[in-house]
């Protein structure tokens, strides 16, 4: 930004502290710091509230610094809110959905990016567009479809696909395949054709070219997309809301709605519940932030 020849030699994206220009940045730093504090306020407030016993906030008010600080709200929210079962439900939905999405999307991406045949662009367009639709558009027909898919009762206690993990997994998978196919096909196109060519000359079947040649080279993109999809599907609120009726089968994200009713005006418990649901994403954020950001920008940089 600084219009001197000395500063342009520094790559603009690298945060190298440049002593001569640090002074110029102070308005920026003030602005960014103020914004950052504002950004953190809602989160810090939730965390602060969650650490205080209800009795103390009743006594001193929510805007006080007196009283005790402990993790009792978290313990109470965890047991009263039924978190273990919600987290289990989230796992049962997220893990299969992410694996299926990546598996199907990588096959599709392999086929459309490594071979050219008549309809591959058409299919790719169809897949990409599918992911951009508002999910509410498909809600009614999918609901009816699942409602009228009769299943034996030993398989599903509703007798249909409704109220099952499968319904949510299917909807999420179908919805996410489009985006993943788009990203992976762009990634795979960049892998030199000579590699699969050589494998083919050596007699490798299509499946081996996919599984043993292309897929290992696609690992960085798969890792980034996997992280992104775990967050997306864990954060999905809509499909369980539509398909799952019994509360004990809801994933965490949709179940927090019930906490509001359950904890009524006990903001301390509600805040603790909210923080608990953040923990898995927070862990992923801290451990795999780079992957997550890569996943987000992977899809966006090609336009």
């Amino acid at each position, binding site marked *: 930004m600084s219009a001197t020849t000395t500063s342009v030699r520094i790559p603009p994206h690298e945060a190298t502290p440049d002593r001569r220009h640090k002074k110029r*940045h102070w308005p920026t730093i003030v602005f960014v710091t103020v914004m950052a504090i504002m950004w953190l306020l809602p989160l810090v*407030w939730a965390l602060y509230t969650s650490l205080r016993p209800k009795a103390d906030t009743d006594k001193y008010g929510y805007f006080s610094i007196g009283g005790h600080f402990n993790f009792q709200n978290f313990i109470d929210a965890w047991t009263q809110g039924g978190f273990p079962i919600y987290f289990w439900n989230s796992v049962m939905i997220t893990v299969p959905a992410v694996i299926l999405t990546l598996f199907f999307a990588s096959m599709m991406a392999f086929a459309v990016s490594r071979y050219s045949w008549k309809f591959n662009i058409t299919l790719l367009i*169809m897949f990409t567009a599918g992911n*951009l639709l508002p999910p509410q558009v498909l*809600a009614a027909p999918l609901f009816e479809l699942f409602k009228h898919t009769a299943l034996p009762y030993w398989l599903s206690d509703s007798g249909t696909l409704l109220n099952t993990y499968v319904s949510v997994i299917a909807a999420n998978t*179908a919805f996410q395949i489009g985006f993943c196919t788009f990203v992976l096909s762009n990634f795979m196109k960049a892998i030199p054709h000579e590699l699969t060519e050589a494998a083919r000359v050596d007699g490798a079947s299509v499946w081996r070219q996919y599984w043993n040649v292309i897929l290992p080279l696609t690992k960085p993109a798969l890792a980034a997309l996997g992280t992104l999809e775990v967050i997306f599907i864990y954060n999905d609120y809509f499909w369980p809301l539509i398909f799952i009726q019994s509360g004990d089968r809801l994933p965490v994200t949709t179940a927090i709605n019930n906490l509001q009713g359950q904890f009524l005006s006990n903001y301390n418990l509600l805040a603790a519940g909210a923080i608990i649901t953040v923990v898995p994403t927070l862990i992923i954020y801290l451990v795999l932030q780079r992957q997550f950001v890569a996943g987000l920008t992977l899809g966006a940089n090609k336009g």
Partner: protein
Amino acid sequence: MTVTSARTQKTTASGQGELPARKRRRLRQFTRRDVVVLSIMVGIPTLIQLCLVWLPTLFSIGLSFVRWNGLDFSDMKWAGWGNYQYVFQDYTQFWPAVLHNIIWLLFLGVIGTPLGLLLAVLLDQAIRGTRIYQSIFFAPVMLSLALIGIIWQLFYSQDNGLLNFLLGTAGKPNAIDWLGNPSVNLWAAMVAATWRHAGYVMILYLAGLKSVDPGLREAASLDGANSWQSFFSVVFPAMKPTNIIIVVITIIESLRAFDIVYVINKGTNGLELLSVLVIQNLIGEGQVIGVGSALAVVLLVISLVPIVFYLARTFRREA
């Protein structure tokens, strides 16, 4: 990321000429088994996509022309344009919802997206601790919109919320019920949505800014452009792909907005949005599938505008 897109372009460019010959050669050398495997690899994802995304979309259009309570298929009656007529003329919540969606879009477009761009530009400079700032602004992107609704409820609460405390009105009669008052709750919800949206835009623009050739800025500054000029006439236009994505994301996010308002009060009392009306008519008492589907089709038609625009731009080069 930059490497990826650059490589993609190179491959498509150089691959163009050899493709037909290569294709013929390859097709001849497919074994029977390869053809079967390849059809399965394409077939299963395509089938999933067709059955669970595109056919339901078509059925939504079909259902918008019937009168149905969602129970028995035999109760289904042809309604012609009746549902649309009802939606446009008699459904009192429809036009407010459209207006709310437009306000939502404008708010994200005028405040959320530019704020994200501003943060990206500022944090792209060599300032100390830029990574920490980036992480802070990016944090809400990891959270679900439903959770954001809850967290901001704690912040907005009339008697116990931090905002009224900071304004000095908490506990007093003039304390604003930020989420309960229909004249302000839409704005309160949009601020919460912006909290997430701006971070998302920031991260995309940070990647976009890195992909801009530093030589461009150098050239601009050598030509005597100040940093303002060099950004708007050189850097910003150079980020065209990112700009397009962000326009599309902003529009689609504001059409999809649902979770936040549904968590706050199920999208009533000033928080009506098209997406919410669709769901209110589909679930809940007295299902009116026809009306819900007509609303879904309206939403679909509006969404197709940015979708088609984006696809046309993205695939024009390849088709």
